[in-house]
């Protein structure tokens, strides 16, 4: 190879040939690209056109507004307030720790907020879903975030409607609260209806009527960009708000009862004998349900959970107490119904009772007894235990159990109080199964005092008193009166109680009125300023077993080991409007605690001269 042999003409010819070849290949490749583009843009146009449309258009679910809850007079008990929360779309944040640092400097982040936020960021979620960091921003905080918007990429202030309970603690156990949905609940609920819902009813009415309160979701067909930001609303179907619920409860009565219980543990349930509507249902102490709506802090929750007073516990529906002497009117009717005695028969009460072949001495609460001439009426008025030992023994468990069952003991008869406990009305079979022993006569005597195995909730006692006040006519307890103007229907209910001799209702009423009016009546303290006819029965329930012959010394017992005080009552006697059961834990003397609390509530209810059915505020 040498320079001499190079021929410029040959090289130019080679290039020209190759240039034609290159031009030809360029043409071929252009044709290939044109063919490819035609294939995409003509042949597959429909496919990609619909793909592009799906990209662009998204269906957004619109959360319905939760139904409101009112009391019987139209007082708002659960509402939806606009609340601004600070949310972050993690996908859009470049530097999370820097962003959180800036937010902390601007509006502060508590360690709990940070922890809960970080937990939800790492948990499974939809991409580009906003996660809340702070709730309930005030105006200043919103302004601070807005001003620094430029530095806070991916951070938004979102307005949403958040449940609020204006009565704070008054209705905490009855209405309950809504809280953040957990994973298990998410799986259980309708995925379409609950697609964007963040909170659901956790307890109480909010839980029981979740379906009615929730409403129907709507949707928005929106145009979004690749980041999921909504640019345009193309089509809209409004959501249907949840139904409003009107309760049987009376907010002012509830407040009265809560105040009457102030500083005490216990419960009071008041019902309307004509309908079974629950007028008042309190459990004291209570808590602020608003704490739970946005997720309660560990500190708050622990202090509620660990409190000796157990404020989270719903005593009204789930507190099981020995009903004690409040059982006596029901038992008395049972004696008459069985025919073991009549209103005239008198017994002697030495202050104690003994069974044949039994060493045990069954004591009367009055050491020296109630005298030698005690009939049923006296036994009710003075709460004579010896009389009830004797008559219970005569009647026997096989007659007592069915009769007491008719008043709803041992069952949950509430219509819409799902979490209520059935408590316990013992019989032979129960004892054999659960205690492995046969029924003794002594067990019947204890039952005759509403003690021993027997347990009842305040709601059960109120229901029984309610049926009693209506002379055996049954209405199941119901919290709700109307759902969106539709009255709550009671499809099934226990059989009405028909006495062989209906006069016994009035005679027993007379005895129960004596409890208050008679000079020996156990609730005679209520007599003063009584403007209506009140019938009632006191009860005490021992919570510490007192040994035989041991002196009962209440001073020596700790406050929490004192007897529970109970009172059942209704008024007015000739036309019952309200029936009540009240339990004061460790209240010791029913006449001094449970009875006056009940009277305050009845006074309030019967003397309430507000116009009915008109909404008002207080």
């Amino acid at each position, binding site marked *: 190879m040498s320079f001499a042999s190079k021929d410029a003409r040959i*090289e130019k010819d080679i290039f020209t040939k190759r*240039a034609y070849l290159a031009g030809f290949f*360029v043409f071929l*490749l252009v044709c290939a690209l044109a063919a490819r583009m035609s294939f*995409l*843009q003509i042949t597959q146009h429909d496919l990609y056109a619909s793909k592009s*449309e799906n*990209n662009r258009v998204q269906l957004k679910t619109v959360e319905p507004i939760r139904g409101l809850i009112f009391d019987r007079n139209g007082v708002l008990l659960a509402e939806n307030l606009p609340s601004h929360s600070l949310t972050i779309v993690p996908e859009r944040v470049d530097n999370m720790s820097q962003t959180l640092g800036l937010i902390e400097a601007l509006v502060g982040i508590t360690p709990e907020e940070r922890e809960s936020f970080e937990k939800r960021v790492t948990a499974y979620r939809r991409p580009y879903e906003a996660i809340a960091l702070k709730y309930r921003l005030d105006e200043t905080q919103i302004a601070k975030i807005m001003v620094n918007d430029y530095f806070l990429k991916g951070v938004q202030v979102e307005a949403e409607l958040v449940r609020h309970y204006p009565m704070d603690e008054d209705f905490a156990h009855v209405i309950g609260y809504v809280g953040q949905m957990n994973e298990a609940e998410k799986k259980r609920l309708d995925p379409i209806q609950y697609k964007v819902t963040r909170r659901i009813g956790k307890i109480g009415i909010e839980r029981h009527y979740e379906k009615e309160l929730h409403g129907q979701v709507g949707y928005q067909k929106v145009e*979004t960009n*690749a980041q999921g930001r909504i640019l345009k609303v193309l089509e809209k179907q409004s959501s249907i708000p949840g139904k409003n619920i009107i309760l049987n409860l009376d907010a002012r009565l509830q407040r009265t009862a809560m105040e009457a219980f102030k500083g005490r543990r216990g419960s009071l349930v008041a019902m309307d004998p004509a309908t079974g509507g629950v007028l008042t249902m309190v459990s004291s102490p209570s808590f602020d349900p608003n704490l739970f709506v946005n997720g309660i802090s560990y500190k708050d929750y622990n202090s509620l959970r660990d409190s000796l007073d157990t404020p989270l516990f719903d005593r009204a529906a789930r507190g099981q107490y020995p009903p004690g002497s409040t059982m006596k009117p029901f038992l008395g009717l049972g004696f008459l119904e069985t025919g073991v005695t009549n209103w005239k028969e008198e017994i002697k009460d030495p202050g104690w009772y003994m069974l044949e072949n039994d060493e045990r001495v069954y004591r009367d609460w009055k050491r020296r007894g109630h005298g030698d001439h005690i009939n049923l009426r006296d036994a009710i008025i003075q709460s004579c235990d010896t009389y009830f030992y004797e008559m219970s023994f005569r009647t026997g468990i096989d007659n007592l159990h069915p009769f007491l069952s008719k008043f709803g003991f041992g069952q949950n008869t509430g219509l819409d109080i799902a979490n209520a406990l059935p408590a316990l009305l013992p019989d032979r079979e129960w004892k054999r199964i659960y205690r492995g022993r046969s029924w003794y006569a002594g067990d019947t005597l204890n039952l005759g005092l509403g003690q021993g195995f027997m347990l009842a909730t305040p709601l059960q006692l109120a229901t029984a008193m309610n049926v009693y006040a209506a002379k055996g006519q049954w209405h199941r307890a119901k919290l709700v009166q109307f759902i969106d103007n539709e009255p709550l229907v009671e499809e099934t209910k226990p059989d009405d109680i028909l006495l062989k001799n209906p006069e016994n209702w009035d005679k027993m009423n007379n005895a129960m009125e004596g409890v208050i009016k008679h000079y020996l009546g156990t609730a005679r303290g209520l007599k003063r300023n009584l403007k209506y006819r009140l019938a009632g029965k006191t009860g005490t329930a021992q919570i510490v077993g007192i040994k035989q012959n041991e002196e009962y010394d209440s001073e020596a017992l700790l406050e929490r080991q004192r007897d529970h005080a109970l009172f059942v009552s209704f008024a007015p006697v000739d036309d019952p409007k309200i029936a009540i059961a009240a339990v004061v834990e460790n209240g010791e003397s029913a006449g001094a605690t449970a009875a006056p609390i009940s009277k305050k509530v009845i006074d309030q209810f019967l003397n309430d001269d507000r116009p009915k059915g008109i909404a008002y505020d207080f």
Partner: protein
Amino acid sequence: MAGDFIRQLDDSGMQSGRGILQRLNIDITMLCLLLLLCAGGLFILYSASGQNMGMVYRQMVYLGLGFLVMVVVAQIDPRWFQMSAPWVYGVGIIALILVLVAGVGAKGAQRWLSVFGLFRFQPSEIMKLVTPMMIAWYLSSKLLPPRLKVIVVVFTLIMFPALLIFKQPDLGTALLISSAGIFALLFAGLSGRWIVIAIVTVLAVAPVMWYGVMHDYQKQRVLTFLDPESDPLGSGWNIIQSKTAIGSGGLEGKGWMQGTQSQLEFLPERHTDFIIAVYAEEQGLIGVLLLLILYMLITLRGIYMASRGRDTFARLFAGALIVTFFIYVFVNIGMVSGILPVVGVPLPLISYGGTSIVTLMAAFGVIMSVYMHRRI
């Protein structure tokens, strides 16, 4: 044939305006085609950038600078390129080594060299011009068509910059520089026999590599490279979205600034590598065909201009550059439409970005120079 049509464009008409442009060594036909392409490109960019006028202004500055570079380069006699070729090539290789040793990087790749902290430049960009220049210089001194020994030397000359750029890593540029060198070889008359042998060798070695040498993860990488849609969340996302944009454009397109895929930001890199998808979505197949014809005219005109070069060096240099320009177009559109693997290649003179515009316009300057210095 298309070549005849291009030749007819030459020297015809425009007698009055020729004086100044001819003295400036500017070919009026090529200038018009380039101006048409760049002007259209600005409209596409305005839409693709989401109506970002600032970006359009900056692109106009780059284009202005590019045309200035083209005019300046067109004044240089091809002989000067020939004389300086080995020196410039040597300096370029040293610069590439410096990039690997002391380069400045972005996004995990080292491509920039900072000169005394005053300014930064990308040696690999310059090598796009220098490598074909070096090959043309070498071949012009050898007997053509080239023999085996010459071919081996040419491949060695290509390998140095290609490997150094591949190391940065910048696979796209490495491949384009290699192809520029190979095109020079083809224009020099590389025998069809060698081309057949090369293809057969690749076909024979590939299965051996695949089954004998490569690890599974390497195979996986190759597969993803060849078929990005198998990785829909990674590189596949881009291709799926760009095909959707192109396909949904149909025959007539959705209209300027009306492309939902691009305007709603589903399309990634929409103002740079994937800008053709924006154009195809908004202007449809008709617009795409017009653009392809424009690119083809520029290429054919460029090949014609190269063929009129004074000597072998000038022809090979210009020929390699203009074919490489077309390869840019083909690789970019092929990649965006899903028939070629994804390599980072911009659409010439339309994608946003100053560096590639200046390099491309310098190449057109070389082609102008080769064409205009033909009669001396």
